[in-house]
C-alpha cells in the first residue's frame, strides 16, 4: 500500500525540472522581446561582420527569435546578393558565410548557372518591397521605410566597397575582382538556422539566471 502510494507520487518527479526548463526558455524569449533596442544593436553588429564577406539585401533581411522545442533559436534569413572576395586566411565567420552561400568560402567560385532560379525570385522581391513580400521582422524598427526604396540599391554599393576595401588591405591582388563582384548582383536566399543563443550564450540574451534584466522604469 505504502509502496503503491509512493510510486504514484514519484511518477511526477521530473516535473520540477520541466518547469524550470520551460521557464528558462519562456523568460529568454520574454526578455529579448522586451529589449528591442538591444536586439537592434546586435543585428547591426552582426550585419557589420556579414558585410565584410557578403553583399546582402538588407531590406529583405529577417532576424527573429523563436521558441522551439527545448531550444531558443535566433533565426536569420539573409538574402545574399553576392559573395565578396575573401582574404586567404578566413575567419570562422567567413567560413560560415561562404558555406551558406554556395558551399565555397571563395567568392570567385560561384558559377552563374546554378543561381538563376533564386535570382529570379529575388528580383521579384526587390521589385515590390513596399507590398511586403517578406514577413516583417518580429522586432520593431527594422522595417524599411518608404524612403529607402529608391536609395537602397545605391546604398549597398558603398557598403560592398567598404568591405572589399578592407579585404584589399589584407591582400592587394583581390582588389581586381571587385568590379565583377559588384556587377554580379545575384541574390539568393538561404535560411541560416543559427542557434546563437543556447545555454552558454552571451549574457545579454543568454541564461536567464545570469543575463541582465531589461531596464526598468517604463
Amino acid at each position: 500500500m505504502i509502496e503503491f502510494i509512493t510510486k504514484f507520487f514519484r511518477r511526477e518527479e521530473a516535473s520540477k525540472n520541466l518547469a524550470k526548463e520551460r521557464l528558462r526558455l519562456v523568460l529568454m524569449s520574454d526578455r529579448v522581446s522586451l529589449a528591442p533596442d538591444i536586439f537592434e544593436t546586435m543585428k547591426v553588429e552582426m550585419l557589420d561582420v556579414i558585410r565584410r564577406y557578403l553583399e546582402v539585401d538588407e531590406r529583405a533581411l529577417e532576424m527573429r527569435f523563436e521558441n522551439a522545442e527545448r531550444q531558443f533559436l535566433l533565426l536569420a534569413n539573409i538574402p545574399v546578393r553576392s559573395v565578396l572576395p575573401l582574404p586567404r586566411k578566413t575567419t570562422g565567420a567567413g567560413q560560415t558565410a561562404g558555406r551558406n552561400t554556395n558551399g565555397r568560402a571563395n567568392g570567385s567560385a560561384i558559377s552563374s548557372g546554378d543561381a538563376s532560379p533564386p535570382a529570379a525570385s529575388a528580383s521579384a522581391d526587390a521589385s515590390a518591397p513596399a507590398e511586403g513580400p517578406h514577413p516583417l521582422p518580429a522586432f520593431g524598427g527594422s522595417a524599411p521605410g518608404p524612403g529607402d526604396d529608391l536609395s537602397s540599391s545605391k546604398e549597398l554599393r558603398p557598403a560592398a566597397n567598404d568591405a572589399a576595401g578592407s579585404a584589399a588591405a589584407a591582400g592587394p591582388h583581390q582588389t581586381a575582382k571587385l568590379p565583377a563582384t559588384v556587377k554580379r548582383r545575384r541574390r539568393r536566399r538561404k535560411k541560416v538556422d543559427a542557434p546563437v543563443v543556447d545555454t552558454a550564450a552571451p549574457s545579454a540574451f543568454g541564461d536567464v539566471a545570469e543575463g541582465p534584466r531589461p531596464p526598468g522604469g517604463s
Partner: protein
Amino acid sequence: MGPAPSADRIESMKELDLAGTPLSTNVRQEARRASTRGRTIVVTSGKGGVGKTTTTANLGTGLADLGKQVAVVDADVGLRNLDVVLGLENRIRKHLLDVIERKGTIDEALVRDRLRQSLFLLPAAQNREKDEVPQAAMVALIQELQNRFDFVLIDCPAGIEHGFRNAVAGAAEAIIVTTPEVSAVRDADRIIGLLPSHLAPKLIVNRVRPGMVKEGTMMSVDDVNAILRLELIGVVPDEKDIIIATNRGTPVIDIEGSQTGAAFRRIVRRLLGEAIPIPPFHPKRNVVANFLSSLGIGRS
C-alpha cells in the same frame, strides 16, 4: 486588541482632509509631511490569484500588532476583495473613487479594523472601472495617507495595465508575490521589468508546499529566486488555514498555530528591519499520513 493610535495621530487624522483646502498650500501640514512620512509599499504580482490580497491583509495586520499605524489600500477597482479578506465588507461607506472625486473624505472612506485600532482599510469602488481613476489623483491620495500612517500597503490589481500603473505610481517600495509555478514566475519577471527601479522590489514566495519541493514536484524557493534574483523577504507555506481564515474573514495571522500566519509575522519583522532567517519548512506529515488522515485514520 491592538494599540490605540497616539493623540497626535488622531488629531492629524481629524484635521487632514483631502476634500478640504489643497494641502500644498498649508504650511503646517507641509511641515508635518516632512516629519512623519510613512512607508508606502505596493504589493504586486502580475498574475492574479497568487496571494496579493492575502499578503496585504496579513502584513497590514501584523504591522498593526507591532504598534504601527497602518492603512491598507485596495487598488483593485471593480474587483475589490481586501474588504472580504479582512472581514470588513459590511462597514464600507465610501470608497477610494469617492475620495478622489470629492464625494467623501478620507475619514469617511477609511474603515477601522474590528480588532486593531491602528489598522484601516481604504476600500476600492466595486461598481466602477480602473480607468476611471486618474493617476495624479491616486498619487495624491497615497501621499495623503503617507502623511498620516506609518505604513501604507497598496493591494495592486493583477495585470500590467492602468490599474497596475496607478497602484505603483504612489509607492516608494514594492513587494512581489509569486508562487512556485511557471506562469506566476514568468509574470513576476515581467512585472519586475516594469517597476521603476527605485522601488527595489522584495520577493515573497507564496504557496510553497514543502512536501512537493522535497519530492521534486515543485520548484523550490531557490529555483524561483535563481530566476527572479530579488531580495527574498519571505516564504509562505501553503496550508488549508488560509482558506479557513478567508472563510471567516480573519487574517491567517490570527489563527493559532498556523505556519502560514507565523511566516507572515516573520515577514512583518523583516520589513521593520529585523534580520530573521527564513527557516526551512518541513512537510508536516508525509504523503501516507495525509492519505490516511483523509480517510479518517491516524492523527488529524
